[in-house]
């Protein structure tokens, strides 16, 4: 133990600040590899897509508010319905956890950056470009209209002419690169970049949840990429993978889609539970009960989620044995989910929680998600599923799961970490108003849809006849959607107002347990001047009042603060026990991630337009960016 410094000040960190600061202006903006800037960017982009997806949902609910309504025609309705689902799952929900993971994982494990900073920048640019690519379809008028699942053969060129579905298939494939490299980055970061002392059994639960999510991404994503590629080959190159007339099979598409699609639900649920564990622990000021059991539950959920995909296909007429197996496996997920719910309930019952906005959203999450989980158990029962699948009951179920189980935790996380990210507390009351609007709006919108499904209303219909008994529930649901929208607008207003106006935030406004609260709000560019020393799961709670967390600024006589020679230095440790610390030199800002992403965008445009020149240029730019990847900043 040498050079134990409680905290570094001013002149001592001047060199670190200089080395880690991005270049000023637009050049710095385009070349940055800082995980915090990239995380914030991910957040703003994903949140924008949330608002766009929400606007689409409002139009859908307006159309369905009354029977035989002709606000939207069938074509416009199908386009908005497709883009609403695609946007919410692929462009909002999944990337939103990349935002949280990017910003928080390095801070929570006591690292200076992600393991592959340039890969991180690349994954953001691809996300942005693929989102813009899919939305460019609105400019051409050929908007994807095959549903977010785009089942073949409806999406084959025979039944879907025009380029709408090409935007979808190419966009999804393109976006998959972003998600995959993001997953790789999280895994390596979490396995190797943890500060000394943070062994596996001391990792914050949020970090565990991101690790599980990243592992799932790695195994699930190839399947949907394959579905997208084969669909595009069928569409653009006349192949017959899904065409029964040419020896193909439409069910193959469904298998490929759901082998990814079901784990995807857990890819956006597991990190949400990580957020909830952090929020509840801080708001109750107690460690989560049964840490090891919660970790086991996270990992078990991840595993089991790969054995469930066929429950999306119970109505396709599966053999008895197969259906019973997948039914039992689907029911099994209730166990790890129940373990987490009861771990939180037990923790909350150990001390009176404080009802700040993050806690309100955490409570809203428990109530809403439990309903969604229970209806999930119901649809795992084959005969009930065969009766109710593809009806509004299922729409209600997965909105309870996704809004309750994923969006509410995201909002809890937003209100929880906002002070850390911006250095500002949020306004005192707007958040509570937003919570009640969203909580009540959510129940009023989606609870009646359970009943609509039970009384026979199928999903994805643009209109319905008067007198079928669906009028009242649809009207209530649409009114609820208005309240829900108001809630999200309030959150948006709160984010903006607080950013400009609110009180400066201290390092640790909540008295929380993990390392990100040991540094300033917002954190310095280099995160930690030296590596923090971790001796338990709750490093911040081990400190005496007034004490600050100790950091180590030297490794084997080499300084992490002085004489950096213009390099980004970071520390790596062993996988399991986070020992044997070593200094590594990290990549610096560069244009190549941006150029590589742009080259891939050109290739996507070329595939869509079948333009050889654009393909050639895009290919060259991609190859050149790869070649220069390791080079300097410009």
């Amino acid at each position, binding site marked *: 133990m040498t050079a134990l410094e409680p905290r570094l000040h001013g002149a001592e960190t001047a060199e670190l600040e200089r080395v880690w600061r991005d270049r000023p202006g637009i050049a710095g903006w385009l070349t940055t590899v800082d995980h915090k800037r990239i995380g914030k960017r991910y957040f703003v982009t994903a949140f924008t897509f949330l608002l766009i997806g929400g606007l689409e949902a409002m139009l859908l609910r307006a159309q369905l508010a009354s029977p035989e309504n002709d606000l939207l025609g069938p074509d416009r309705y199908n386009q908005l319905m497709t883009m609403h689902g695609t946007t919410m799952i692929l462009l909002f929900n999944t990337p939103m956890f990349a935002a949280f993971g990017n910003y928080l994982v390095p801070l929570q494990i006591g690292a200076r950056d992600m393991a592959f900073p340039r890969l991180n920048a690349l994954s953001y640019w691809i996300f942005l470009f693929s989102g813009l690519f899919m939305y460019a379809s609105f400019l051409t008028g050929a908007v994807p209209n095959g549903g977010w699942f785009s089942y073949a053969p*409806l999406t084959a060129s025979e039944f879907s002419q025009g380029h709408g579905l090409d935007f979808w298939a190419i966009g999804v494939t393109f976006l998959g690169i972003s998600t995959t490299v993001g997953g790789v980055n999280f895994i390596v970061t979490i396995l190797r970049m943890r500060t000394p002392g943070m062994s596996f059994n001391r990792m914050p639960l949020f970090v565990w949840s991101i690790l599980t999510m990243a592992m799932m991404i790695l195994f699930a994503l190839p399947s949907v990429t394959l579905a997208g590629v084969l669909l595009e080959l069928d569409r653009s190159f006349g192949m017959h993978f899904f065409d029964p007339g040419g020896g193909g099979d439409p069910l193959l598409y469904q298998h490929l889609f759901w082998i990814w699609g079901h784990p995807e639900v857990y890819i956006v649920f597991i990190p949400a539970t990580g957020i909830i564990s952090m929020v509840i622990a801080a708001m109750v000021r107690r460690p989560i*009960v049964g840490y090891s059991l919660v970790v086991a539950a996270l990992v078990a959920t991840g595993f089991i989620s790969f054995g469930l995909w066929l429950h999306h296909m119970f109505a396709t007429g599966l053999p008895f044995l197969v259906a019973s197996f997948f039914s039992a496996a689907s029911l099994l997920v209730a166990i790890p989910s129940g373990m987490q719910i009861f771990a939180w309930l037990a923790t909350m019952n150990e001390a009176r929680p404080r009802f700040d906005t993050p806690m309100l959203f955490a409570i809203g999450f428990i109530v809403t998600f439990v309903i969604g989980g229970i209806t999930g158990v119901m649809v795992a029962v084959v*005969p009930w599923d065969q009766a109710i699948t593809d009806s509004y009951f299922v729409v209600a179920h997965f909105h309870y799961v996704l809004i309750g189980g994923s969006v509410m935790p995201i909002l809890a996380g937003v209100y929880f970490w906002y002070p850390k990210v911006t250095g500002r507390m949020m306004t005192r009351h707007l958040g509570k108003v937003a919570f009640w609007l969203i909580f009540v709006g959510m129940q009023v919108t989606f609870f009646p849809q359970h009943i609509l499904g039970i*009384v026979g209303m199928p999903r994805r219909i643009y209109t319905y006849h008067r007198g079928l008994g669906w009028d009242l529930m649809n009207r209530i649901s649409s009114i609820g959607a208005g309240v829900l929208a108001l809630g999200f607008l309030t959150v948006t207003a709160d984010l903006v107002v607080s950013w400009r106006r609110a009180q400066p935030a201290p390092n640790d406004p909540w008295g929380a347990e993990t390392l990100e609260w040991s540094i300033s709000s917002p954190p310095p560019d280099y995160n930690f001047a030296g590596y923090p020393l971790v001796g338990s799961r709750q490093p911040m709670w081990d400190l005496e009042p007034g004490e600050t967390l100790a950091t180590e600024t030297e490794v084997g006589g080499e300084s992490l603060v002085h004489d950096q020679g213009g390099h980004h230095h970071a520390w790596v440790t062993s996988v399991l026990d986070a020992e044997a610390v070593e200094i590594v030199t990290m990549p610096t800002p560069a244009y190549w991630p941006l150029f590589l992403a742009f080259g891939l965008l050109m290739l996507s445009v070329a595939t869509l337009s079948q333009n050889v020149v654009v393909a050639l240029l895009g290919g060259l730019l991609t190859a050149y960016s790869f070649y220069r990847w390791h080079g300097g900043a410009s």
Partner: protein
Amino acid sequence: MRLRLARSRTTLVRAGLTIALASVLAGCDEAHSVFHPRTTEARRVAFLGWLMIGIATAVFLLVLALLVRSFFGPPLRRRSAGGTSWIASGGIALPTTVVILLSGLTVWAMNDTRTGGGIEISAIGHQYWWEIRYPGTAAVTGNEFHIPVGRSVHLSITSTDVIHSLWVPELGPKRDMIPGHTTELTWHADEPGTFRGQCAEFCGLQHAEMALIVVADPPEVFDRWLATQAADASAPSTAVAQRGEQVFTTEPCAACHTVRGSVATGTVGPDLTHFGSRATLGAGVLSNNAEHVASWIANAQSFKPGSLMPPIDLSADEVRDLTAYLEGLR
């Protein structure tokens, strides 16, 4: 201030209860509800549904109680064991019990219900209508068909274009109609009635307007109905209808539609041999009467944009004759 808050909370609770109550009432009242079962198969579904709603309510209330306890109750002391008994009982034992119970019931409810001596029906999905055949007979119909009460009804299900799904909530589980595959479904209707269904798998522009009617008849009524449907269309008896047949077979109609017993043998659209006996046209878009038939022929696209039925350019007289012919096909 506090008082007002409390009052608004009571109002909120009351509003919530009202909505919940209204929902339940609307659910019970509804004709084509999963909870209005009219076959053996549908009864199993409804039984499972009610049972699971009961379990669900109990589990939800338990969680809610523990949540409320954390707000107001005395803090639990963490025991040396690690305070994991809640996870063991609520998180492991409780769901495990439910899972075992429901798995058993699932296997029971999935048991094949098919019995001998039943009737075979073949259902074929099209964008956006239903073709129904009775193998072994000449009967072919569209968008409306009959089944016998008290006999096993066995459906073989497929599609000629995209994936559709056959769903009549009161008759039980749905089944996807997949091109290149044949799936199966069995119904045992236990009382007569008319049941409405609708396509449940997104199948394109007019997925919303693909309804179907199933009529359960007493066996002898059903046998009569099937015999009628199997027969060719009787020759039109009035002069108007005879002119109508002329229009039908010379104009584009016959290219897409069949009327058995006439020269019209098209197979793109529904078989119209006994069109006049059906309650709706366009797979439930309009009720079947002369006025609707006339406007449907003139421009089906204004009622069902995206359907394969093109606008037909006929004179007013031709439309009147054609309508009379079609309405006479009983």
